């Protein structure tokens, strides 16, 4: 007999897109899988009990707490604080059932693997994406349902018993927040579950999700107490992007082989060091061969990300310049007497303290620290946050250019030639290279690993990133620091004396 395949149409994330009936056909096994899992969860009292308690009991407890708190605060005429407690507890009530999703999601693949039930599924005619999405939907369904029920019952009881009249937009944004938080947690936990070899391993790795989410919740609570509800929309958008990236990452690194092949979660430091070293050296026999071979190869692969980093830097420069345009900056009153005095000061005493010669090693180390922080943020955010950090100094430079023009009548080219390019001609390429490499490193997590484990793939990416950093960025930054310490101040002094004070601009 012939069995129809579910594989031809593919749904998402750069894969072929199905249409109409094809979408339904493609989704059918996804829904089948999800339905089975949900039914299984409904038969497991260990999942049901906390879910029911958190969904039904906790909203009532929150309701009681809120009303008692208001009554208490009223005695001190601090009703405002108590009122802010209502939306805060709404957030908490929405989050608690969602927290269960983490437990269920962490064992979605690792648990099936441990119980030996995964192989028949892997041998069924399902694509990786169908299998992955089926699991994802299944672990999302009950906790989200619990969250919505909790939100509903809390809101309703607060309206009826405490006379709370919440802003519908606030309700909507908290509802959205609960949904995207669940999405982020579940998609992150499913990634962990596919990579761990046991439920225990997955639970140990869960801190990578719990800690950021706990910090996020604290921040969201602060926003609610400060009544900065608009910022919550930004949080929703950000979390949505993160959850999409996490799903993309999960799909990219989902491997039937990995699920069946790995047996132990061992920390093999030797293997890690070897893999990293091989990726860093690229098998080159000498430094010269390394520069000519592996490093050049990495640079070639970096063309796209570096171009993107350069464009973003340029964009940040333009945006920085544009943002300060509307502000009425006062012009510096450069009367002939003041100019003469300034000329004397600059000629005799040199530049103002901020522009004086500094220790080049200090400059270099400062830049290296900033970039390492950017790399860390980049890795944690698939390269995205790292780029924002890259854009910041360029935005300041753009703003500085406009300010110099407005206040000192300094033409943009003099500003660039005198204050930016003497060391920037070396530092800017280094920053762009670094930005591109970091973007590539961050994006590696969401890139299909082609038969490699996530760890091996990431170590390879880290090795290639290190090639660019060690071979180019750090030396360029050192050169830039020397220029910034010994050349840039003299050029700046010359521009101040001859262009700004001398009227050359």
């Amino acid at each position, binding site marked *: 007999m012939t069995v129809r395949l579910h594989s031809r149409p593919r749904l998402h994330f750069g894969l072929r897109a199905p249409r109409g009936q094809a979408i339904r056909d493609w989704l059918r096994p996804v829904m089948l899988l999800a339905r089975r899992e949900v039914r299984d969860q409904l038969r497991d009292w260990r999942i049901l009990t906390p879910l029911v308690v958190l969904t039904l009991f906790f909203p009532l407890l929150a309701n009681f707490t809120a009303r008692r708190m208001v009554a208490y605060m009223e005695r001190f005429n601090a009703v405002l604080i108590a009122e802010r407690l209502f939306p805060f507890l709404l957030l908490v009530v929405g989050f608690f059932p969602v927290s269960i999703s983490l437990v269920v999601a962490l064992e979605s693949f690792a648990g099936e693997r441990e119980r*030996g039930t995964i192989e*028949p599924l*892997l041998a069924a005619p399902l694509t990786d994406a169908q299998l992955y999405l089926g699991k994802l939907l299944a672990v999302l369904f009950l906790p989200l349902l619990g969250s919505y029920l909790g939100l509903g019952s809390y809101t309703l009881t607060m309206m009826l018993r405490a006379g709370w009249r919440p802003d519908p937009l606030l309700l909507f944004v908290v509802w959205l927040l609960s949904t995207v938080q669940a999405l982020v947690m579940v998609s992150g936990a499913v990634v962990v579950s596919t990579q761990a070899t046991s439920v225990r391993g997955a639970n140990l790795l869960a801190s990578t999700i719990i800690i950021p989410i706990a910090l996020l919740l604290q921040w969201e609570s602060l926003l609610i107490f400060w009544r900065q509800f608009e910022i919550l929309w930004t949080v929703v958008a950000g979390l949505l992007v993160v959850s999409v990236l996490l799903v993309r990452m999960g799909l990219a690194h989902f491997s039937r082989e990995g699920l069946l092949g790995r047996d132990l979660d061992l920390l093999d430091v030797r293997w890690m060091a070897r893999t990293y070293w091989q990726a860093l050296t690229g098998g080159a026999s000498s430094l010269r061969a390394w520069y000519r071979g592996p490093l050049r190869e990495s640079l070639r692969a970096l063309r796209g990300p570096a171009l993107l980093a350069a464009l973003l830097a340029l964009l940040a420069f333009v945006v920085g310049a544009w943002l300060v345009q509307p502000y009425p900056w006062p012009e510096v009153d450069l009367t002939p007497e003041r100019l003469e005095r300034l000329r004397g000061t600059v000629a005799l005493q040199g530049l103002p303290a901020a522009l004086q010669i500094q220790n080049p090693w200090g400059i270099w180390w400062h830049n290296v620290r900033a970039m390492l922080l950017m790399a860390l943020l980049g890795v944690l955010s698939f390269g995205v946050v790292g780029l924002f950090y890259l854009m910041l100094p360029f935005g300041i430079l753009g703003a500085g250019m406009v300010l110099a023009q407005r206040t000192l009548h300094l033409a943009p080219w003099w500003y660039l030639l005198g204050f930016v390019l003497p060391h920037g001609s070396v530092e800017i390429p280094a920053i762009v290279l670094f930005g591109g490499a970091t973007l590539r490193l961050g994006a590696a997590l969401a890139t299909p690993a082609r038969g490699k484990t996530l760890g091996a793939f990431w170590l390879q990416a880290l090795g290639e990133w290190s090639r660019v950093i060690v071979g180019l960025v750090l030396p360029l930054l050192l050169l830039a620091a020397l220029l910034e310490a010994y050349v840039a101040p003299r050029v700046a002094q010359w521009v101040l004396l001859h262009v700004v004070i001398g009227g050359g601009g």
Partner: protein
Amino acid sequence: MNEWGILAQGLGKQFDGFWAVRQVDLHVPYGEVLALLGPNGAGKTTTLRMLTAVLTPTRGRAWVAGYSVRHHPQRVRAAVGVLTEQHGLYKRMTAVEYLRFFGQLYDLDAARLQRQVDKWLQFFDLWPLRERRIGGYSKGMRQKLALARALLHEPRVLLLDEPTSAMDPASAHRVRAAIRELRSADRAIVVCTHNLTEAEQIADRIAILHRGRIALVGTPADLKARLGEPEFEVVLARPLNGTLPDLPPLVQVTRVGTDRFRFRWARGASQRLNPLLLRGLLTQGWPVVALAPVPRSLEQVYLEVVGHDGASA
């Protein structure tokens, strides 16, 4: 390629630098049951997983039910029925729910699914327990249910990994009988097993996998023939007391016991000379109770191929 249920050429699989399977060349036509024998770690399960398109081969090619495991893994998975080493049953489901779930994954329409579920539950004597949770099933029942799952979509290629492992003799017997019944002209079956008797009972051909390579393939009779000329045993009614009868020069004595001895005919001679030998012994006054061939076991062949390192299997 279409006459072959399975055709594998130079199949190999490497994990982190270790070759789990080095070189597997197999062909299993429809209508044949092939037993894949081998010690632990020989690569049986990895081979099966490659043939199921769950693992991608590192090298080599394979076609299962006419589809390439490398290029059409989905079609391969749809065409084969797999009994995995661990039965992989969901304990909170009933047998009917479980089979329906998998039947739907294999895209069987409702009417056919119902027929197939009923058919296989009855075939494996699970019908009376169909509404009981799988968690309450015995090992044998679970294995039969897993087999029913593998057969639900009537696959033309059936891959069975250790189908009777950890089963009591009665259950194992029932499962073996079921496999024999499943043999048909348009179905190719591969059974991975440690159990040599089982292999001999159910397989048309046997392949011995050792250290990731197919070391030997043939019918059970072919494999036994590898042990050389048949051996015969003469049992006497009195002890030999260290004295052997006068035997023709073509007789090579292989073992001597208290009241018996074993021999082989030298190359060129044949067992058709046994009556002459018997007459000679009787003439010399030896009270012969029996002269019979020594049964040759597959185990001997197996041990000869895998050596002592595989003897634990």
